[in-house]
C-alpha cells in the first residue's frame, strides 16, 4: 500500500494555501497531520494531483481562552488539547474528547482542523462543536467567513467547506457560571473508533434547574448531529439521575439513520448511544453543580 505520485508544495501562509487550492479546484488537497489523508493515499482510495502541505504553517496552533469563547487554531494538535490544563478547566468536554482520539501517536500528529474537516461520523470533535455552539472559521479566495457548527456538517464526510477554503480556527462557546460539559464514548476495543458517543453541555439557572442543554451525538447518524428533542425536553428539569436516564432514552429514540454495518448494528449503537448520553449528562450535571 503505497501512495500514487502527486505534485507537492509547502504553503508558508494561509494566503499561499488558498492560492494553491484555487489553482486546481477539487484536485488539490491540504495535508496537515496526515493521519487520515496519508492512509487514504497509501490505500489509493483517494487520489490527488497536488498536495498542499500546511503542516508547519505558522500562527494557526493557538488556544485562546476568553470569557465567552474558546478559540483554537486549526493546526493545534489533538495531543496539545489533551494536555492543556487551562482548557481542562474551561472546556473539559473538549479535553475529554481529545484524550479519546485514537492513540498517542495519532494525537501527536492529528490536528483539530483535520478532524473537523474530515467529519467522519465517528470523529470525536464534531459532536463537541455541536454541543458547545461552535463555529468554524474558513478562509477562501473571497476572504474569511464563519459557519455555525449546526450548518457545517452536511452529510457523510461532507462539510460546508469549499474545496478552495482552509479552516483556520474553530470556536467553542462558554456558557458561563453553573455550566458543565462532558464527553463519553464507547469503542469495540480500547480506543478504537467510537461505536457511539455523545457530548453534552448544560447550564443551570439560579434555582438549579436546567436552562440550557445541548447534546451532540457521535456515530449515530451519517454525520454528527444534535438530539434536539431531548434538548428541549431537558429545559426546566433537575440535574439528577432520573433526568439523565430519561433524556438519554429520548436522545436515541427518534434516530432514524443510525449506521448499521458489520462494525456495529443499529440496535447496538442505539444502546451504546443511550449509555453515552446518560454518562455524559451525569458528568455534565456534576460539573455544573460545582463538582
Amino acid at each position, binding site marked *: *500500500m*503505497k*501512495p*500514487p*505520485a*502527486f*505534485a*507537492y*508544495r*509547502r*504553503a*508558508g501562509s494561509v494566503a*499561499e494555501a488558498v492560492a*494553491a487550492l484555487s489553482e486546481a479546484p477539487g484536485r488539490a488537497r491540504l*495535508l496537515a497531520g*496526515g*493521519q487520515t489523508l*496519508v*492512509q487514504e*493515499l*497509501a*490505500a489509493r482510495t483517494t487520489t490527488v*494531483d*497536488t*498536495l498542499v*502541505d500546511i*503542516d*508547519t504553517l505558522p500562527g494557526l496552533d493557538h488556544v485562546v481562552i476568553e470569557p465567552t469563547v474558546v478559540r483554537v487554531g486549526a493546526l493545534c494538535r489533538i*495531543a496539545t488539547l489533551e494536555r492543556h490544563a487551562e482548557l481542562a478547566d474551561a472546556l473539559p468536554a473538549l479535553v475529554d474528547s481529545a484524550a479519546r482520539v*485514537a*492513540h*498517542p*501517536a*495519532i494525537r*501527536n*500528529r492529528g490536528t483539530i482542523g483535520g478532524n473537523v474537516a474530515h467529519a467522519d461520523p465517528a470523529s470525536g470533535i464534531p459532536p463537541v462543536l455541536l454541543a458547545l455552539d461552535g463555529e468554524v472559521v474558513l478562509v477562501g479566495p473571497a476572504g474569511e467567513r464563519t459557519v455555525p457548527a449546526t450548518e457545517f456538517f452536511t452529510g457523510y464526510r461532507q462539510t460546508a467547506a469549499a474545496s478552495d477554503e482552509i479552516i483556520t480556527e474553530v470556536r467553542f462557546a462558554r456558557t458561563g457560571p453553573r455550566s458543565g460539559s462532558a464527553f463519553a464514548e464507547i469503542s469495540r*476495543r*480500547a*480506543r478504537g473508533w467510537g461505536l457511539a458517543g455523545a457530548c453534552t453541555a448544560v447550564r443551570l439557572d439560579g434555582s438549579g434547574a436546567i436552562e440550557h442543554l445541548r447534546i451532540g451525538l457521535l456515530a449515530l447518524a451519517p454525520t454528527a448531529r444534535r438530539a434536539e428533542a431531548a434538548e428541549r425536553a431537558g429545559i426546566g428539569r433537575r440535574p439528577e439521575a432520573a433526568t439523565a436516564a430519561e433524556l438519554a432514552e429520548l436522545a436515541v429514540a427518534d434516530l432514524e439513520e443510525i449506521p448499521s454495518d458489520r462494525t456495529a448494528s443499529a440496535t447496538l449503537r442505539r444502546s451504546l448511544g443511550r449509555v453515552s448520553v446518560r454518562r455524559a449528562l451525569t458528568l455534565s450535571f456534576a460539573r455544573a453543580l460545582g463538582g
Partner: protein
Amino acid sequence: MEAQDSGALELVELRVNGVGRRVGVEPRRLLVDVLREDLGLTGTNVGCSQGVCGSCTVLVDGATVRSCLMLAVQAHGRDVVTVEGLADGAAMHPVQQAFLDAQAQQCGFCTPGFLATAVELVERDTQPSETEIREALAGNVCRCTGYEHIVDAVIRAAEAQAETREAG
C-alpha cells in the same frame, strides 16, 4: 513555492539518531520506507501500512509518530529517533533494559514500536497506573505476548524513571 512535478525529488534534511542526514525523495515516499531503505535503518517494521498496528512507531521531535502515516518530506528539519538510536553504544536505554528484564518480546516484530510508545510514556508521566499504561499501549498491537510481560516492562521502566527523577 512552486509546485514540483509529481516524480521530482524533494530534498529532505533531518537528524536521525543524532546524525544529520540528507536524502532526495519523491514526495509520496512514506517516512518508514525512507528510514528503512534509503537510510538503512531496518529496525522499524511495517505491520499494516494502515496506521492501525503501531509497529512502525518512531519518535519525531520527541513525540511518537506512526511512520507509515507520515510522508518523509514532512520530516524535513525534524529530529527522528528510531529503535537503533535508543541504546548508547553497548548501554541499553533504560526502557530497553526493562523490556529485557521482563522478557517482553517473543518474535520482536512489534517491539521497536512498543519501545517508542513506552519511552514517550515514561518520560512524560511519573506514575502511570497499570490501567493508564494499558491504555497508552492500546495503539500498539502484539500478537505473540498477550501484553502482560510488556506491561511488566513498562511498569519497571516507569519506576526506574521515577527513581532517576527523585535522585536527579
